[in-house]
């Protein structure tokens, strides 16, 4: 009798032993799910979630517990949530932040706590240069990158003067700095607008008065919708061509501005027509699951999950092996939906950047790749990073 019980207990311990080793990996996601700019955060979350769902709730063959929280684009909220996730939920990895001003407030506290942060979007210059950290990885781009490509492209088109605009926050500054790094012509005007601004009539009147050859603007989310609509309504789209990074012409914005954006060129590290197995799989599944086409934000969320998948597998789900986990992240052994991908010395991507054109595919207004601006493009701050 006793022996039987002992046997049963022994069997139970044997059974539960592997289960204990495989405690779910806890991932904390802070992103913008309500208010202005929520479409970006929703896309990042959906892209990430899709990758997890396609693997049956697992990443790297381990159960994951994904804790998602909404920052409403407010720095205070993001900091508070990060604190809670680190102290109460004891997450292993954090990700999700859309906006650079939020990332600058949260990322240092995550890395200081000895945890990992994988950025699916924000890539402020500060965190790529002097403020870089061995536990901080950016899976999207350094903020300047797409704007640098736009600068190069507009320069190649030989526009002699360009009027440039961005919101007044860290990523806006990075954007215009990136554009000017590669654009060698004359800057007809440089304007910073309020983050979340809705009416651009005053800026458009000044813009017209400056009569530039072209306009470059970085206004993500609802700001971009407002601007593109009002730009067309002021009749400026007939006289002055618009250029921008992909953020100003993502799927969400295009759906909301109608035909007015047709024919506009913008720069991106990803598009849904990139032909590789991972991307085709991603676009099909995303469309099937959510009933809409993915934006670049969704692709970044998906890639972040794929990178995690590869690194969790490398350590067999044992998140205490921090050094091994870090080297696995650094190795980036996953098939990115954007094609070739690797990390530079500051843990920011080295990747190709394309130029896309807005066109009409049946009833759907979307982007197609029409050329490549940079191959294996890194960022300007890597040299300042001492890890």
């Amino acid at each position: 009798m006793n022996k039987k019980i002992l046997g049963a207990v022994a069997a139970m311990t044997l059974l539960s032993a592997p289960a204990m080793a495989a405690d779910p990996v806890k991932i904390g996601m802070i992103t913008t799910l309500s208010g202005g700019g929520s479409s970006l955060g929703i896309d990042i979350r959906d892209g990430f979630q899709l990758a997890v769902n396609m693997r049956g709730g697992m990443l790297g063959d381990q159960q994951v517990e994904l804790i998602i929280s909404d920052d409403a684009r407010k720095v205070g909220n993001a900091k508070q949530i990060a604190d809670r996730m680190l102290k109460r939920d004891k997450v292993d990895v954090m990700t999700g932040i859309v906006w650079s001003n939020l990332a600058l407030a949260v990322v240092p506290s995550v890395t200081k706590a000895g945890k990992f942060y994988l950025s699916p979007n924000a890539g402020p210059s500060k965190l790529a240069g002097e403020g870089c950290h061995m536990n901080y990885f950016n899976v999207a781009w350094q903020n300047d990158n797409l704007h640098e490509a736009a600068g190069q492209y507009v320069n190649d088109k030989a526009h002699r003067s360009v009027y440039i605009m961005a919101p007044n926050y860290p990523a806006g500054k990075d954007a215009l700095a990136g554009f000017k790094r590669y654009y060698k012509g004359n800057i007809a005007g440089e304007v910073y607008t309020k983050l979340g601004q809705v009416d651009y009539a005053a800026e458009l009147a000044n813009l017209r008065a400056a009569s530039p050859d072209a306009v470059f603007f970085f206004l993500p989310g609802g700001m971009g919708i407002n601007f593109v609509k009002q730009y067309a309504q002021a009749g400026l789209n007939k006289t002055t061509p618009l250029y921008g990074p992909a953020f100003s012409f993502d799927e969400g914005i295009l759906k909301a501005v109608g035909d007015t954006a047709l024919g506009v060129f913008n720069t991106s590290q990803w598009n849904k027509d990139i032909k590789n197995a991972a991307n085709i799989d991603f676009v099909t599944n995303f469309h099937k699951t959510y009933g809409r086409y993915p934006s670049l934000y969704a692709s970044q969320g998906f890639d972040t999950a794929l990178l995690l998948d590869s690194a969790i597998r490398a350590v067999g789900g044992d998140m205490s092996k921090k050094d091994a986990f870090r080297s696995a992240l650094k190795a980036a052994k996953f098939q990115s939906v954007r094609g070739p991908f690797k990390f530079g010395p500051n843990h920011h991507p080295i990747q190709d950047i394309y130029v896309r054109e807005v066109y009409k595919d049946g009833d759907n207004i979307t982007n197609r790749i029409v050329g490549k601006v940079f191959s294996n493009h890194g960022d300007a701050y890597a040299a300042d990073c001492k890890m």
Partner: protein
Amino acid sequence: MTFFLFLEQTLNAFQLGVMLFLMAAGLTLVFGIMNMINLAHGSFYMIGAYVAAYVGHVTGNFFIGVAVALPVAALTGMAVEITALRKLYNRDHLDQVLATFGLILFFNELTSIIWGPQAIFVPIPGLFEGSVELIPGAPYPIYRLVIIGAGLVVALLLRLLIVKTRTGMLIRAGASNREMVSALGVDIDRLYTVVFGLGALLAGLAGALAGPILATEIGMGENILILTFVVIIVGGIGSIRGALIGALLVGVVDTYGRAFLPAILRSLFEDPSVADGVGASASSMSIYILMAVVLIFKPRGLFQAYG
């Protein structure tokens, strides 16, 4: 900087002011008469925009969209007043802020469930497409002129309502002394519901009209709500005239700040990037400076509401 550019910016300032007035008129009535801080006012603006966009899209007629949006916004407002807000009139302002903030979250989520998380497209009605060259060298979108016109008509109608009708008289009486009004046998509950519905209707109208030029997206109301509060504080809480003057003032200060401050600062600073940074920050502060200055000299706003 030319004179024509200045004229064009003045027109822009006027248009922004009128837009703010439509929002502020409802908010100031609710705040002034019921002494109720209603953060969910922006939600009625969003409901107006979404309903107008949806009905306009289905029927193919923008005006039907607006016509349906108005009663929907008003009825939503009244329903919210009867079910939720009525219990909060005698509570602390902090309780009201908390409750109406909850309503914002509720309506945002509801909108997301009904229309999805992405912004929706609202075309300019064909009748008002294109632009006119009122000012030489600066074609001005006709639709923006229509908004100015609509706002001024609403201002006029509201004035008639408040000054000439019995309801208006009750509203004024309710603002100055609610106990006395109810002691005289007026059903103050019903009056409040009507006023709240009217406020929601005006917010819905603002949203419906904003659809073609602004992004119709979830949370669109919160962006404009803060400006609206500045307007009613500058104008004097509870005063329709104050809301109009306050809205125009805020429109002018905000637009001129954005239009001219950066250029002026560029001529003052040697380093243009410093000037741009200061200019952007200074112009986004300008309306709050306006508010502070007004409050120093007129602590209850420019126009005190009745009594």
